[in-house]
Every structure is written in C-alpha cells, then in structure tokens.
C-alpha cells in the first residue's frame, strides 16, 4: 500500500479503490473477522464440560469460522465492490459485539456451565433446534404468518375505510365514533375467551382478534389524517371542478396517507402481541404455540430458537411496511428511516 493512499481521506480512498481495484482493507472488518474466527476457535478447541453431550459443537465452530472467513474475504477483496464493502464496514462494529456476545454465551454455558440448565442452553443447542426441528419450526412460522396476514389485512382494510368514512361524513361519524371510543381502547386480548366461544374455529376467532387489534389504531389515525386535511386543498379542487369522489380519493386520502401509515405501524405492533397470545391460548399451531409447547417440555433451546425466528419475522414485516411507505410517500420530506 502506498503512503500516498494512506493520506487520502476515507471516502475518496474507497473511490480510488473502486477505480484502481485495490484499497487498504477496513480495520473494523478485519477485527470483526478475527473476532468471529476467535470465537470459532474457542468453540472448537476448548472442550465442553465433561458431563455434557452437545451434538453440534463442531458444526457451530464451522459456521462461526465460515462467517469469519466470509468477513475476511469481504474485507480483503470487496474493495472492488465499494457499495458492499461500505455496507459491511457500517455494520462491522455490531458484528464484533455479536461475536463477543456469542463467545461469552458459549463460555458461560457449554464451557464453564456457570448458568443453570435447562434454562440457559449453549448456542450449539439452539443450532441443534434449527438442524433437527426445522420442519416444525418452519411450519409454525408459516402458520403464524398466514394467520397474521389474514387478520392484519382485514383489520387494516376495515380500519382504513372506517377512518375515511368518519373523517369525511359527520353522519357516519355520529354512529361509529361512540362505538370506537367505547370498544377501541379495550385490549383485543380481553375478547379472547368470548371470541373462542363465539367463533366456529380458533382460527377465525384469532383472525377476528388480530383484525380488531389492527383496526383500532388504523381507524383513529386515518380519521385524524382525513380530518386534518387543510380546507384550502378542497377549495383548490372545488374551483377546478372536482366532484365529491375526487375530493375523497384524490385529495383527502393522499393527504391523509402519512397519518395512515402511523396507524398501520401501530396496528402491526398490536397484531404481533395478539397473535402470540392467541396462539398460546387457543390456536394449535404457530410460533406462539411452539413457544408454549417448548416450555411444556422444558425445551428451552427450542424457545430461544422460536424467539429468534419471531424477532426476525416481526422486524422483517415492519421493515417491509416501512419500505412500502417510503415508496408511496416518496414526496414527503424528512421521513424516519427504519
């Protein structure tokens, strides 16, 4: 590496790397790679406690080492792919922390047995769940997603429609508003015993509850969005010959969309909570049910695995919602990036 290149500021150095095909590897990426490889070595060469029989200690070491190796490759070679490298470099500090966390977790469980079993299984036990029980875990995830999607979409559609109607028409507002005020604040889970009794199946009952949990915030936020549209917008459209339908669909609704998305976001959070409770108490499938089942068998590794999947799925869905919003509200300034 030439001394000249070392004096160039970081950003332009990356650009030079892109154009000339070489650049100094990022130190944070190298450290992150080393951390993952070190944890892999700890897992592999520090023997587990004598009375344990973890089946996948070796596999865990291989996965950790592979990830560390991939990081090393990214750090050394990806200078040709500047966007990739910049991305990896941005998350590298987090990757270091993650490696340390897995290392400490491994040491206090599998290596030193400082934490009591079965409540605190080592990482390889969680890995074992993914290897041995992936089909049940996958099926549960799919079941949860299906139930969530049904309830959420129904709730969002009804909430959106109700919000527009209340915001637009005082006559409808007169009838819907008191119901909304009376029933809305009630946690959807409070309906659970009644819903399982009234609805023909636990699936339809849970769909109803999720729709309810989603619908309330979507309705209120859509309503406030439509109600807060500036009258000047309507005046402009009216002088230009707009019909009532135009005022609703081309003025009120687009103007209310930023509010609507706040409602959709809140509704999604609510729906996760109701989904898990419904699955724990009535539905015989899904991740909530899997958690309950794992706890019944004291299979805590399965619980951690399910929690991990759940976190990834929920976070992924929120990301998806935000992407959709960013796409639809590209005109808005100062969007909060997720």
């Amino acid at each position, binding site marked *: 590496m030439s001394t000249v290149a070392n004096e160039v500021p970081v950003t332009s150095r990356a650009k030079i790397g892109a154009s000339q095909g070489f650049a100094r590897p990022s130190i944070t990426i190298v450290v992150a790679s080393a951390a993952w490889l070190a944890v892999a070595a700890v897992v592999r060469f520090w023997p587990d406690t004598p009375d344990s029989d973890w089946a996948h200690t070796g596999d865990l070491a291989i996965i950790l080492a592979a990830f560390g190796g991939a990081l090393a490759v990214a750090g050394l070679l990806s200078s040709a792919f500047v966007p990739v490298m910049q991305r990896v470099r941005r998350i590298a500090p987090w990757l270091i922390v993650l490696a340390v966390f897995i290392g400490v977790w491994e040491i206090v469980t599998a290596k030193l047995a400082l934490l009591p079993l079965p409540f605190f299984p080592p990482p390889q036990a969680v890995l074992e769940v993914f290897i041995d029980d992936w089909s049940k875990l996958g099926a549960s995830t799919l079941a949860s997603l299906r139930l969530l999607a049904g309830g959420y979409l129904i709730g969002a559609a009804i909430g959106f429609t109700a919000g527009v109607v209340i915001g637009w028409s005082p006559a409808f507002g007169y009838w819907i508003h008191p119901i909304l005020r009376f029933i809305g604040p009630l946690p959807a889970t409070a309906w659970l015993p009644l819903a399982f009794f009234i609805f023909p199946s636990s699936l339809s009952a849970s769909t109803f509850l999720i729709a309810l949990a989603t619908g309330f915030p979507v309705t209120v936020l859509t309503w406030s969005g439509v109600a807060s549209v500036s009258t*000047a917008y309507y*005046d*402009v*459209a009216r*002088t*230009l010959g*707009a019909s009532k339908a135009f005022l609703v669909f081309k003025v009120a609704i*687009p*103007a209310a969309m930023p509010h609507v998305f706040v409602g959709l976001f809140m509704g999604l959070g609510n729906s996760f909570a109701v989904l898990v409770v419904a699955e724990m108490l009535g539905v015989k499938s899904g991740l909530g049910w899997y958690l309950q089942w794992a706890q019944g068998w004291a299979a805590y590794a399965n619980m951690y695995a399910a929690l991990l999947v759940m976190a990834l799925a929920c976070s992924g869905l929120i990301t998806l919602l935000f992407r959709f919003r960013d796409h639809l509200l590209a005109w808005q300034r100062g969007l909060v990036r997720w």
Partner: protein
Amino acid sequence: MVAAAIRVEATTAPTAGSALHVQDVSHQFKLHGEPLAVLERVNLQVAAGEFVAVLGPSGCGKSTLLRLVAGLEPPSAGRLFIDGELIAGPHPSRVVVFQDPTLYPWRTVWRNVALGPEAQGNLQAKRGRVAEALKLVGLTGFENAYPHQLSGGMAQRVALARALVNDPQLLILDEPLGKLDSLTRIAMQSELVSLWQNAGFTVLLVTHDVEEALFLAQRVIVFSDRPARLKTEIVNALPYPRHRGDPRLAELRHAVLAQLGLDATW
C-alpha cells in the same frame, strides 16, 4: 424563458372573458356565535376582459368577496352573476389563485398543473395544454419536481399554470404575489399583464399593495375597513406596457392613498 413571456407584444386581446356583476352583496361570518359582518351591500360591475383590482386594508373582507365570486360560499344576501347567470357554485371557468400556492405535496409539478383537467375528466385531451401552461410560466423541465423542492416564486408559478390550464374566463387572484420577494414579484407582475393581454380573460385581483394594483389594473376599487364597503374607484387609463416610474402612476397612487387616509407622507 420568463423574459420570452414578457416580451409578447400587446396585440388586440380576443374577448374570452366573462362579465361579472356583484349585486347588493352582503356577507357575514359566525365568530364565537356572534355574527360578524364582512361585506356590506357591495355592488360591482366588471366588464368582459377587464382587469380590476380590489384594494383595501388587510382583513377587510376582500378575500371573502373572491370566495363568493368563485362560488365557494353563497353570500348571506345579494346575488352574483357571471355573464348574466347566477353564480351557484364553483366552476373551472372561474379559477382562483390563492395567496398560498396550495400545491398538493404528493403530486409532482406536472400532476399539480393537470389537476383541473383530471378533476373534469378530460386530462387525455388536455395533456398538451399542461405542457403549454408550464412553458408559459417558465417551468418547463420541472415537470417531475415535487412542491417541496420549489422556491416560493416557482410554487406560485405552478399555481398560476394550474389555473391557466383550465382556460379560465375569469381569473380570480387573491394576493397571489403577496408572499413573494420583491424581485420575483416585479417579474411576475409583468408576466401577469402579458398573460392577461394574450388570453383576454377577465381578471379580478385582490391586493393590499397600492403600486401593484395601479401597475396592473385598469380600474382600482378601494374598499373600506370591515365591514367592507365600496369606498371609491379609480380608473387607470394608462396604456400597457406601463412603466413603474411613470409620474402619472405616482399621481394616481397619491389619489388612492388619500382615499385610504394615508397621504400624509406622500
């Protein structure tokens, strides 16, 4: 491109304008349950193709008169006629340009200008007019910009294009240049004059700027304080294009300010 619009020669204007007749119009608002009179027995005739400015102290009810002319509200008493027909509601032949551009932030410049044709359901036929209107206000090339990317003057030009695209017969201007910086304002005043001369529509302009009213209009109506009553009117027969430094404009200005009781410093 702006200059090109100004340079257009003052040819004989085709009479595409509407005649406005305001007959004994009074209007009041409810403020905290109390009626508040804003207009009192206003009578006004505007000939087809005429450029009339309404001048008055701020908050005197000038803008209310425009809302009534636009048909956005019915008057409490009296009647308004356009070409002899009673004004019963808004119509795209009477378009308002408001003090704020009130562009829709979720629409691009092009789609904002296309709002009228889209609302009237003839956008396909009028696509060419949208491009023309944008060219007329000097914003060709900004079709895909969003309102938040525009300066105040550009946004007001878009609002003007959004009005012009409908081929209005009566252009109602509610202090459209009130919030612009003085340079942009001077430029846009000249543009308004040439637009009016070319299109031949009638213009009803509300302003509290004496110079603007005199520079633009053929007739200046002076309103009293609230409730607005017609105080006087001043005919400005100076030919176009006018020059801001014209001593005759200064004389008229003195006369108007005298009417408003503000001539002490002039």
